[in-house]
């Protein structure tokens, strides 16, 4: 059904019209009429104060009655206009955003407030919202003491201390990250290179080439003479040469070929554009790319993902929510329950950028493989889960369910995706 409606048509245009109408018919009209009543009252008061003859006073008072009544009626109709506009807006709202219940029967998160609080705290830190984070920490401490918001606030004081220390540590780390990123934005690679050098062993263990990429970019940047203070035509190249001599030695083992290319490029310096090395010096997006991979490596060394998990989870949550809603309403109607606790009962399609682990669904059993039931590759290259293999095997032999090949179960290999 949702496929029918045009994706780009916003239902909010009529709502905006009704809002404009509501803004126009507001309470100020009534205030204007109250002002008029006040004016009349004050004028009559002056009149009465100056009059000494009682019949004139009673005349003034009698004459006041009808206009006041009229104005009171005017106020009532002012208010009617306001209600009318509000009602129209309410109707337009119902139309633009028909009320739909959210799945709230089981709130799995409510039982673990301490985990939610921690996730939010870390999210704020990694987003660089340090002041909000510290206010939040102060308020959690205050509230946990007052109200029983958390069942067991992080288990006693000792743990708490450790936790707050690690939190400070984390804040410190992220502050450092943002400093380095700010420098990167200003084309200053030095702090990033220093950081990468300090952590070079751990980065290398991860198979990351960040340190070299940074140094390479520094070389190229110097080479192009972007540093500004170019005294002579060759100043850029000389400093790049110097830089290369000082720093490239330690990358020789891993990146000899690239270093060789960079050095050879020096020969082509006068007309680099025409040289075979031109592609090396296309650095339009290089700083953005290197900043991105820096963020990723920095977070990975902390054991964290590059994107805030809270952001990814909430975004994925709102993408998957319609399916969940459909499922819960269906289950409510049928009054049944899903028996498998470990796995959702419906598929939640996420965009490819949100699939992090490789997922293998056994083509025989249609189950996802797990640690206990890993994917096995048959001799022909087809893959099924280990349980399925056991089920289709006769003794120590099997026949592939996809091709005519047969083989011995002992020749199958567990694969790691």
């Amino acid at each position, binding site marked *: 059904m949702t496929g029918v409606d045009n*994706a780009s*048509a916003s239902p909010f245009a009529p709502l*905006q019209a009704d*809002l404009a109408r*509501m803004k126009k018919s*507001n*309470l100020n009209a009534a205030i204007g009429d109250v002002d008029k*009543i*006040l004016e009349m009252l*004050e004028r*009559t*008061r002056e009149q*009465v*104060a100056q009059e000494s003859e009682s019949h004139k*006073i009673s005349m003034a008072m009698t004459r006041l009655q009808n206009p*006041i009544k009229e104005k009171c009626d005017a106020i009532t109709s002012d*208010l009617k206009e*306001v*209600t009318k506009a509000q009602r129209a807006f309410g109707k337009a*709202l119902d139309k633009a*955003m028909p009320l739909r219940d959210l799945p*709230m029967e089981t709130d*799995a*998160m*409510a*039982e673990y407030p301490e985990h939610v609080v921690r996730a939010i705290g870390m*999210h704020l830190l990694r987003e660089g919202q340090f002041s909000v984070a510290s206010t*939040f920490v102060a308020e959690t401490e205050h509230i946990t003491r007052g109200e029983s*918001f958390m069942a067991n606030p992080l288990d006693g004081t000792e743990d708490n201390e450790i936790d707050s220390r690690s939190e400070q540590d984390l804040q410190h780390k992220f502050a450092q990250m943002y400093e380095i990123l700010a420098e990167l934005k200003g084309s200053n690679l030095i702090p990033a290179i220093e950081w990468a050098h300090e952590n070079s062993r751990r980065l290398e263990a*991860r*198979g990351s080439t960040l340190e070299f990429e940074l140094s390479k970019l520094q070389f190229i940047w110097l080479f192009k003479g972007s540093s500004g203070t170019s005294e002579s035509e060759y100043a850029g190249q000389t400093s790049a040469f110097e830089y290369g001599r000082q720093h490239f030695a330690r990358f020789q083992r891993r990146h000899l*070929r*690239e270093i060789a290319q960079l050095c050879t490029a020096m020969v082509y310096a006068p007309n680099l554009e025409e040289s075979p090395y031109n592609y090396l010096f296309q650095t339009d997006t290089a700083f953005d790319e290197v900043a991105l991979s820096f963020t990723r490596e920095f*977070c*990975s060394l902390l*054991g*964290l993902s590059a994107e*805030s*998990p*809270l*952001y990814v*989870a909430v*975004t994925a*949550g*709102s993408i*998957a*929510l319609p399916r969940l809603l459909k499922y819960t309403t269906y289950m409510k109607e049928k009054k049944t329950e899903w028996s498998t606790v*470990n796995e*959702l*009962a419906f598929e*939640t*399609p996420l*965009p490819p950028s949100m699939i*992090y682990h*490789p997922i293998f*669904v056994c083509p025989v059993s249609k189950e996802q493989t*797990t640690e206990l039931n890993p994917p096995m590759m048959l001799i022909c290259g*087809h*893959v099924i889960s280990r349980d399925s293999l056991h089920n289709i095997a006769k003794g120590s032999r099997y026949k592939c369910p996809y091709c005519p090949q047969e083989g011995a179960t002992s020749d199958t290999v567990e694969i*790691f995706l």
Partner: protein
Amino acid sequence: MANHESSAIKHNDHLLLDQPLLRLPNELLRKNFRSAHFVIERDTSALKNLLKESATAAVSGRASQQDVLKNLDAMIIRMRGVKRKLSQYAGEEARLHEHTAARIQHLDDLYSINTVEDVKYESWSRKRLDRLIADYFLRNGFHESAKQLAKERNMERLVDVETFESMGRIRLALLGGSVTEALTWCAENKKELRKMECKLEFMLRLQQYIELIRAGTQPKLVEAINHAKKHLVPYRSQHPREVSQACGLLALLPNSRNAEDCYADLYRPRWTELADLFTTTHNQLLSLPSVPLLHIALSSGLSALKTPACHASATNQGGSARAHQDDNSSQEHGVCPICSTELNDLAKYVPYAHHTNSHVQPDLVMFPSGKTCSKQRLIDEAKKAGLPPCQVKDPMRGTLLHQEDLKKVYIT
């Protein structure tokens, strides 16, 4: 094709979580109007009566000039009061109009984005996350954090600080054992609460009564009886059991030994329950979901992202750390958000996603160790590292292999 489909935004479905964003100011506008209406009704009819009386008095000659002036002054003061109050309501109205406008604009922005991969979507979605966090803060009493976040993210008009602050005040008062604030709130929303058939006011009155009896002195007991006559007996038809229990309570003071269970139940501290009842009623009245929106988004999102691999070897720390590295080398995206420390514990309690299709790289090859990798990636890396032709490097062990030693994996 399938990829394209899963990235497309279905706008109407996508705004499920954002219903309260427009519903709340709408409810508040109506409430604001009702209060203004009430003031006007009451004071204009009082004005008309006073005017009529003093005019008749003046005509009949009973009132002197001084009397008439005094009456006129009273009328002027009353109308000034009306004006002052109305100005407040008009100010609130204008504020709510602005909030509504900003929110409609924000939601409308989503309609100009058609796919999740759009860069604009990320900033929109971040804003939504900030809103959800602010909502979480406000519901749990972290008012200062919420205010600061709203200010720093420049989204004050998308966040309902005032509403939750006043709710928090009443809730705290209840937890501290004071019912007056909550009763005032009940009086303000009398009609709507009656329509909802809510028992909050009765429960508050009952608690007042219990406290009077708990005090136990003679004058307090007399007061308790009067209180029951005035505030509890009218509810006899709706809550017969509670009312008769309340009457029975008179005979069983808290110190009496053979208080039955149901009476003991009335004497135990019930403030947290009352505070929760108030919160539920409050949220219901303003069409706010009873659960923080962040919880809904999270439980749906954690499940959608979770795979059996996320908590594999959870018992074995070393093993899972190694697993992380494996993933980094084989996937472009870096650490999975569920494996990341922030959400890992929380995700333990939700089921993992259901998949009917495999999602692996299309050109997998296998090393003799059983490790698999994308062939294109291996070739790219070999080129970059300047390896001899047809040689590739096992990213895990660092050993060199001939391409022919790799085995193609067929994923069906």
